[in-house]
C-alpha cells in the first residue's frame, strides 16, 4: 500500500484508492485533497490543501463543504455536478480549470471532481496551474 503515496493528480481510477489512504498518506500527496460524504460533510482534508488555504483540519473536518468550507465551489460548475451525479447515480471524473481564492488571492488551479455510485466518499482534488 505504500506505493499509493506515489499517486498523482491525474492518476486514473483514483477515487477507490484515496478512500483507503490514511491521513498520513494523504498528507504526503503534492496535490490538495478534500474528501466529503453523501451529505457533503468534509471527512478528509490533507496537508497540501490545509497549507494552501491557511486553515487547519479542525476548522474544516465535520463541516458542510459547499456552505462552510468552500463556498466558491457552490455553483453549477462544481456543486451541481456532484448533485447531478448523485441524482443520476452516474460516475463523475472530470478535470476543470478554476480559480480558488486561497488566502483571498485569486489562484489558478485545476480541479478534479470525483464521485461514483456506491462510494461513500466523494473528492475535490486541487492542483495549482502554473
Amino acid at each position, binding site marked *: 500500500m505504500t506505493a499509493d503515496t506515489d499517486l498523482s493528480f491525474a492518476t486514473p481510477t483514483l477515487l477507490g484508492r484515496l478512500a483507503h489512504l490514511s491521513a498520513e498518506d494523504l498528507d504526503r500527496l503534492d496535490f490538495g485533497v478534500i474528501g466529503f460524504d453523501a451529505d457533503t460533510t468534509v471527512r478528509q482534508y490533507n496537508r497540501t490543501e490545509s497549507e494552501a*488555504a*491557511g*486553515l*487547519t483540519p479542525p*476548522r474544516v473536518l465535520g463541516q458542510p463543504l459547499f456552505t*462552510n*468550507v*468552500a*463556498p*466558491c*465551489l*457552490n*455553483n*453549477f*460548475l462544481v*456543486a*451541481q455536478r456532484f448533485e447531478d451525479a448523485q441524482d443520476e447515480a452516474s460516475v463523475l471524473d472530470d478535470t*476543470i*480549470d*478554476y*480559480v*480558488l*481564492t486561497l*488566502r*483571498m*488571492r*485569486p489562484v*489558478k488551479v485545476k480541479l478534479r471532481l470525483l464521485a461514483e455510485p456506491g462510494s461513500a466518499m466523494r473528492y475535490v482534488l486541487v492542483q495549482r496551474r502554473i
Partner: protein
Amino acid sequence: MNHDPHAQSAAEHEALIQFLYLAPVGLVQTGIDGEIQMINPISAQLLMPLAHDGELANLFDALQDVAPELRQLVGVFGRASGMVCDGLHIHLGPGALRARRAPQVLSLTLLKLDGERLMAVLSDVTEQVRRERQLRQNDAWLNALLTSITDYALVGLDHQGRVSAWNETIGRVTGHDESVVGKPYSVFHPLEAITPEQVRDRLLDADQNGWQLDEGARLRADGSQFWGSAIISPLPDRDPLEGEPEAPAYCMVMRDISDKREAIEGRRKSVFCDHLTGVGNRRAFFEAAELELTHNRRQPRPTSLILLDADHFKRINDRHGHPGGDAVLRELGHLLSATFRQVDIVARVGGEEFAVLLPSCPLSGALAVAERLRAQAAQRTVGFDGADIGYTISAGVAACDGEQLTLETLMKRADQALYAAKAGGRNRVQPWMPDLHRSTGLAAGGRDADR
C-alpha cells in the same frame, strides 16, 4: 492555556481568514483598471460561471458580457474617492437558467478608495428583485386606486376590447366623442405603441389575474398625448347574450397621471436604461422579451429577434480610443431608437451588441428593417475629435413563427445567424436557417474577439 504569542497570533490570523472565507457576500479589491488583487470565495462562486476562460484576473473582464459599462463608470467618476455605484443591478439573463441554482440578478457596489484601488461588494439578489417586482406592481395598483383621483375615464369594453359605450368621463379625459364606440381600446394608444395581439394579451391577463395594469403614453382625440394609467378588470356575469356580442365584458379605468410622469420615467430610466446609448439595458430586454414570448406561447403570432453588433469594433477602439468607440455606440443607439417602432424592445445587451425584439412581426418584416438599418449605418460617419469614424453593422435575425420557442433558443438562433453574417464578410444581414450551424462550421462560443 497557550501563552505562546506566535501561536496565538497564528490562531487569530486563521480565524480572520476563515471569517473572510465564510462571509456570505462577495468582496473584491481591484486596481483602478479592474485587475483583481484580493477576492473572497463568494465572489468566485458568482463570477466563475460568467468568466469564459476559467480565469479570474480582472473584475471588469469577468463582468464584460453582463455589465459592459463598468469601465466607463469608473473612468468618468470624477472624484478622487467615493462610491462609484451602489447596489447596481446586473441582469444575467436566460443563459443562467440552464442551472437550477444559478443567480439571475447580481448586485454590485463599487467604492473607489483612491487613484489606485477599488473595493467591490457582490451579492446574488435574485430573490429580492423578484419580491421588489411584486411590490412595484402592488404599488402601481394602489397608486392607481387610492391616490386622490381627480379625474378618470370609465370605459366599458366588449369581448374583443372594443369600446362598448360612450360616457362623459371618456369625453373629459380623452376628448373622444361617441364615434369612439366600436373601436378597440388601442385608439387611446399612440400609433405603433401597441399591437392588436397585445390588445388581446391584456384582456387575457385580466381574465387570468382578475386585473391588468399598464402605465404609459396615451393619445387624446386631438392627437395630443398624456401619461396614463389604466386598469382593465373583467366584469362578472359577462357571457354575451344572443345577438349582443358588443355587450361590455371588461371595465377599463383610465387616469391622466401626467403630473407624476417625471418621477415614474426617472425611476424607470434608472433601472431599465443603458447609460451610454439611451436604449434599454439587459434587464429591460430580458424582462420585456420573456413576457412577450410568454404571451406568444399562449396566443401564437410571429415574433422576431434581431441581434446586431458593430463590425471590427475593437479596431475602432484601437484607432480612436474608447471614447471614439463610445461615440459610435451612442450614434448606433440613436439610429436604433429612430428606426424601430415604439412597441419594439431595443436594448444594449453586450459591449457592442444590441438586441431588438419585434412583437407581431414576421421574419420578412424584421429582415427588411434590419437591412434598412444596416444600409443607414454604412452611409453614416460619426464625428469624433476631428475624425469622421465610419462603421458598419452585421445582424442576425430569427423568428418565432408557429413554433413554441424559449427566449434562449430564439437568441441562440439569432446569434448563429449573426455569426454567419460575420463569417460571410460582415456589413450584412443574415436570417437564421435550420442548417446554419453546420454550413458555417460554428463551434460553440467560437467567435473571435475582433468581431
